[in-house]
């Protein structure tokens, strides 16, 4: 192979050269359309599986359960309509909004707790996201403190979520459009990002297939995830240890949150989420026991309390995870039926 001169390359006949490209393009387009129409689903809900639904409930005619800063306006509107009373902020993961085998009219634990405490003049508002980690909880808490007159923080401390460290963009409030941003781009003389965003938006508005790319990408990532699990024999019962570094990082975040709450005279109620115990689960028993011990050690009478809700939901109320793409089934260690939510609400409301 020479770099000082190049020989003209022998070329095959034009038809032979172009045929695979044309055929490939047709096949690619057909494949993308098939996946779009027949396989595409909301991968954001894939973690819940086919048998579990999301429910962000309402009470007293207003939204009392939201996800994050993207939909917080709904919960805030209801709170202000209620006269902005002293509020209880409940932060958790998908256990709070996921309901297995949901039936019409059923309620989640956040709504049940809200209704129970509303009768006593307390206002409970809940924010939950799938696999929410303590970094995100802390960020959300710092922002929501400005919007609600909080007197209590109820915090779900889930060992499995100690392995997560990302902070989703939805945790931040939407960035306001600043005219200075465009000026900055001009000052940097770099048109690429501006043009690229404009092209992306134009194509999305014009072509539905282009608009669905994000969903298709999520589907591809999800398929790779499922295939990986099957290839390695990973299922929901596979032990998922938390590394020392991750554990102590999250514990430090938790302690910082507690300190911030106490400095603002906000009581803290820590709890470990309900965990399926009728079959062997993914937690390493020693790690879980250590977590319980560390959380108990954080209690301060009258200010920080801890509730162990590990076994509050009985076996039959737990769900199965059915993979939305291939239909594989696994034990669900996080989500349960509406009856399970009733047990959760019952176990927690006394501590608030």
């Amino acid at each position: 192979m020479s770099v000082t001169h190049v020989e003209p390359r022998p070329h095959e006949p034009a038809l032979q050269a172009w045929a695979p490209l044309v055929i490939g393009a047709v096949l690619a387009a057909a494949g993308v359309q098939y996946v779009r129409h027949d396989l595409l689903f909301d991968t954001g809900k894939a973690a819940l599986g086919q048998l579990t639904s999301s429910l962000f409930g309402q009470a007293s005619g207003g939204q009392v359960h939201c996800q994050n800063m993207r939909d917080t306006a709904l919960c805030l509107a209801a709170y202000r309509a209620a006269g902005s009373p002293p509020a209880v902020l409940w932060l958790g993961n998908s256990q709070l909004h996921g309901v297995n085998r949901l039936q019409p009219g059923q309620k989640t634990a956040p709504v049940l707790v809200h209704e129970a405490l509303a009768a006593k003049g307390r206002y409970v508002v809940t924010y939950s996201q799938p696999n929410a980690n303590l970094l995100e909880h802390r960020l959300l808490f710092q922002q929501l403190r400005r919007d609600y007159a909080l007197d209590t923080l109820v915090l779900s401390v889930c060992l499995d979520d100690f392995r997560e460290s990302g902070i989703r963009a939805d945790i931040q409030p939407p960035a306001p459009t600043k005219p200075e941003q465009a000026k900055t781009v001009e000052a940097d003389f770099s048109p690429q990002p501006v043009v690229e965003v404009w092209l992306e938006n134009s194509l999305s508005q014009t072509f539905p297939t282009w608009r669905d790319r994000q969903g298709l990408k999520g589907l591809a990532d999800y398929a790779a995830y499922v295939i990986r699990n099957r290839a390695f024999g990973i299922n929901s019962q596979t032990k998922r240890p938390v590394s020392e570094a991750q554990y102590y990082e999250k514990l430090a975040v938790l302690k910082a949150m507690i300190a911030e709450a106490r400095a603002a005279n906000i009581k803290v109620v820590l709890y470990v989420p309900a965990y399926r115990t009728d079959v062997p689960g993914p937690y390493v028993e020693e790690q879980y026991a250590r977590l319980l011990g560390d959380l108990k050690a954080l209690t301060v009478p009258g200010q920080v309390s801890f509730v162990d809700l590990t076994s509050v939901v009985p076996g039959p109320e737990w769900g199965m995870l059915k993979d939305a793409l291939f239909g594989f089934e696994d034990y669900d260690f996080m989500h349960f039926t509406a009856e399970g939510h009733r047990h959760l609400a019952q176990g927690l409301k006394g501590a608030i």
Partner: protein
Amino acid sequence: MLFNSITYLLFLPVVVALYWLLPNRARLWLILLSSLVFYGFWRIEFMPLILFSAGIDYVLARMIEASDDEKRRRFLMLLSIVISLIILGIFKYLIFFVDSVGSLAALIGHTPSWPELHIILPLGISFYIFATISYTVDVYRRLVPAEKSALVYFCFVTFFPHLVAGPILRAGVLIPQLAQRTAFNASAMAEGTKRIILGLFLKVVLADNVAPLVNRAFEAPLGAHGADAWTMAFLFGFQIYFDFSAYSHIAIGSALLMGIVLPENFNFPYLASSPRDFWKRWHISLSTWVRDYLYMPLMGAKPKGEDWEAMPAERDGGRDEGKRTRALFITWTLMGLWHGANWTFAIWGLFHALCIWGHRLLVSAVPALKRSPAILGCMVTLPLMMAAWIPFRAKTVGEAFHLWGRMIDPRGFFNFSLWTNSYFAAAVLMAGMLVVFGAWRLSPALATRPILRTTAQSVILAVAMAFVFVFLQVRDSFIYFQF
């Protein structure tokens, strides 16, 4: 402008269409203006720098050719090199130099206080400076005539497919193709299109999805044990290979759409049978540039046309071997620093020099090794070449040596702490590479079976195009943009 962007995928067909519609001289103006637009899409304020640098070398090359005085010719060549290196030095190495001096001063108790420098590295500066240096040296060596047409010369320097991240082109390769009117060739356009699709697949589907695993692993490298350190090395090795070869594929493909043939830059480097063989397969345009303009001159070799005079084995009483070794280490250290203004890159270069030198000693001590099966060489070379990526990716020299130490430390070797996907990805990519190489080796057998060949190509291209469509987004620029 980034290759992996919607902007480029709209820009390219427009430029190519105009290219074939315009007469030859107008084509050159199109190439120059579109290349400047391509470059200016990143930072328009650095366009004058590339034009200034190219302009200096255009003038000096013509002066070299016009002179018959060897001393004057040599002086002009050296002047061109010095000016080019000063430009490169200011924009790429000044901060590194100042920081290094500051660190040395701190070691002896001095803390110099000088103003903080804010110098932006112009995109592609390492590449176009090397291209212009090779041009003036080749004119001096009388390998190519000095280009009289300023338009053709500026097109050579700024030609957008290779401008930002290579291949580093020799004037003798590109200028004749620019100067003559290329004939439209439909099958060349098909091949160019396929190369672009392949490059985009490597970048947006493979490299950009391996990147988060690598970034995450290297965020906390000090906690990694043996198996993790090797996984990190292999993952980054795959990431940089996909990323950089993707750029080359897209560059070659884009040029082919205009009927211009660029040399290959990669040839399955991870299947090299020796460290020396690796450098005949990895970033070929750089390794040959370094050989022709640095290594051979340092060895005192005399150019003979496009090649070099054979080096007598026993000349100068064996000091030749010493000169050869010195040239090797100096060249590779400088090549490391070319990649980045950080001592980690110098260590990367030194590691490669050590590997080549070690292989040389081994083969000379045990000549039978020359006849050993290539697969044995691959099995030894691959882990060495992957281990070499550690200092390339590590943030500090300390991190690099720590990870290298872990790689050979049996204690806690199988303490796994990376994301599960990291191991999965490394294993799948390794297997995939072997499958692809095997398929490539078998592909000539399909030459006599056109239907089977067309079917196989169609399926592969369909999958590639579908995934590129889904995954295309400007998430990461190419790794070699930082060089």
